[in-house]
């Protein structure tokens, strides 16, 4: 069973991520098990998916959180793809989902995700990480502790350092 990190624990990854087929058609949703569907599929099949339950939505880097809007608050799992770790659009997506659209469920990063990207991802609201298969997941977990202090407001610490300094 593939693994992922959720809330600093290494657990089994039981969800199936559905991708469009080669013709760009939505994949068929299996009858059972947790699935993660593309944002466009969710928007097109919202009623059916909601009735089925056990689903999440995934974002590509150019998908817009605005398209999901207030629905974010009712979802329990959103995943964001990082096709390359140097593509920072997913960071903004994470913050927007958390800070503007009230998403409180599991926010999962997948794709080019490894030890050196976890600190920034966490601060942008991600609490789950599908570590690249060729990377050591135990080693990656340690990346969460690279920094214990930061200057800016973020999802992980909404109070910027300058506000905390004044309290201290």
């Amino acid at each position, binding site marked *: 069973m593939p693994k992922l990190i959720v809330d600093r624990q290494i657990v089994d990854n039981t969800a199936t991520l559905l991708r469009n087929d080669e013709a760009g058609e939505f994949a068929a949703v299996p009858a059972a098990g947790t699935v993660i569907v593309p944002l466009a599929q969710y928007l097109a099949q919202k009623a059916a998916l909601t009735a089925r339950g056990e689903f999440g939505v995934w974002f590509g880097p150019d998908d817009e959180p605005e398209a999901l809007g207030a629905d974010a608050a009712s979802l329990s799992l959103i995943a964001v793809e990082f096709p390359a*770790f*140097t*593509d*920072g*659009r997913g*960071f*903004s997506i994470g*913050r927007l989902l958390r800070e*503007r659209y009230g998403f409180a469920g599991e926010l999962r990063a997948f794709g080019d995700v*490894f030890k*050196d990207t976890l*600190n*920034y*991802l966490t*601060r*942008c609201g991600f609490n789950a990480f599908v570590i690249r298969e060729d990377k*050591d997941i135990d*080693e990656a977990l340690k990346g969460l502790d*690279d*920094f*214990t*202090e*930061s*200057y*800016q*407001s*973020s999802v992980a610490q*909404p*109070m*910027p*350092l*300058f*506000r905390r*300094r*004044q309290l201290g």
Partner: protein
Amino acid sequence: MYVYDELDQKIVDQRVAQFRDQTRRYLAGELTEEEFRPLRLQNGLYIQRHAPMLRVAVPYGELASRQVRVLAKIARTYDRDYGHFTTRQNLQYNWPKLEDVPDILAELATVQMHAIQTSGNCIRNTTTDQFAGVAHDELVDPRPWCEIIREWSTFHPEFAHLPRKFKIAVNGAVEDRAAIRVHDIGIIVARNEAGVVGFQIYVGGGLGRTPIVGSLIKPWLEQEHLLSYLDAVLRVYNRYGRRDNKYKARIKILVKAMTPEAFGAKVEQEWAHLKDGPMTLTRGEIDRVAKFFTAPAYEQFPGDDAGFLAARSETKAFGRWVERNVFGHKQAGYACVTLSLKAPGVAPGDVSGDQLDAIADLADKYSFGELRASHEQNLILPYVKQADLLALWNELKAQGLATPTVGLLTDVVCCPGGDFCSLANAKSIPIALAIQERFDNLDYLHDLGEIDLNMSGCMNACGHHHVGNIGILGVDKNGSEWYQVSLGGRQGSGASIGKVIGPSFAQDEMPDVIEKIINVFVEAREGEEPFIDVFDRIGAEPFKARVYPAKAAKAPKEAVDA
């Protein structure tokens, strides 16, 4: 200057540990070259033509003597006993070993220095006026705002992997010595009619392949909103900037494609959500940071120092140095002194370990232990008593730091070029040196007056050639190095981009070409007119006719043929 508290120090120390681990994993094969590259770049580490190059951050150009001594020690221990000051007010080492970089960072951290975000596709070191806090024409000291921006931009989680590098400059004086309109974001710190400090925000300026002068998108931003507004600008850029083509990925391309008005409107829309949020600056924070930038314990003088004025008129060489290298101070009886790193025969911006130590001593002796780096690749002692100038000049001469040519033709701004940089298409240092050698007559140079000569060895424009009155760009043609000349660029308040005058030249032609350009200027000049004004008055044609005589002679025939 700003002094870290234990939290600032912890962040820098944790970075050293993180980078040590990253370097170890890279050397052990656990990180691939492709993975390590963006990680090391965000720590200022390039793999260059000959060796790694490490760019050390000098936030907004401020240095303390104790920091300079550590820079000297690093140059001696880990490099070939010199460092190079860059147009970003940073210092880079050209010959460190990759394995040593974690130790170098640990040394830097002992004096509150680092190499964070000096490269890579992130928010780079914020730059400002090298005379900030002391300039006679200053309206608002920009340094507290630079520090506030430094803290905001350091390890900003959302903007660690932008489409491209991102540069911010701040200016608070009448004259814009920070070139804010050729930055991704340019900030003017100003006062409104009620005397309240706020900002004018320009975006989308930049040099490189597509030079563009920035546009004003926010004529007045209240001070408490600075960071939330910057967050909004960066978020729009991070989400919508192009990532498909690195030459079109800078914010200037996005602003141009959207139009500055539409870009500004998008930022306002984003900012509406962020305004008044937790990043809203507090009075307490603004005051906390401002306290680090108060004036030193000046002695009080009624006006100019008589002994200094006498020496200035009696000793010609001293007078010449004062004219070029000494800048007016806001405090009576004091001066800002530029230490020229443009001595003949030395690559512009280079400084040896011994010179660095000597400079640190001079800063302690004459300038409250503080220094600045300028984007023209010189160093500044910001608090020198006029009464000390003669003695300082004599000490600087002994160190080769008194070349009296600041702002003149031979104060060349120049990137390291093909001798060091793996991006360069052509060398630049030898051309700078050849031009300096040709124009070695100080009287003549002083007569010519202010001329900015800027040179870059490639399109990335680290030498800011676009804003040089005379700009030189090294280009590669079928594997050989050629040099394209542009005229009419300027930095500062009336920033403009120079225009290429014609086909490029071979390296050995360059001193002649520059001499011909200068001769046209001298012949056309009225009185003490500066080069750039002459150029504006007579245009490029007379210069073209002189440097391309054969082509000019042929022109009538072509006209007939047409």
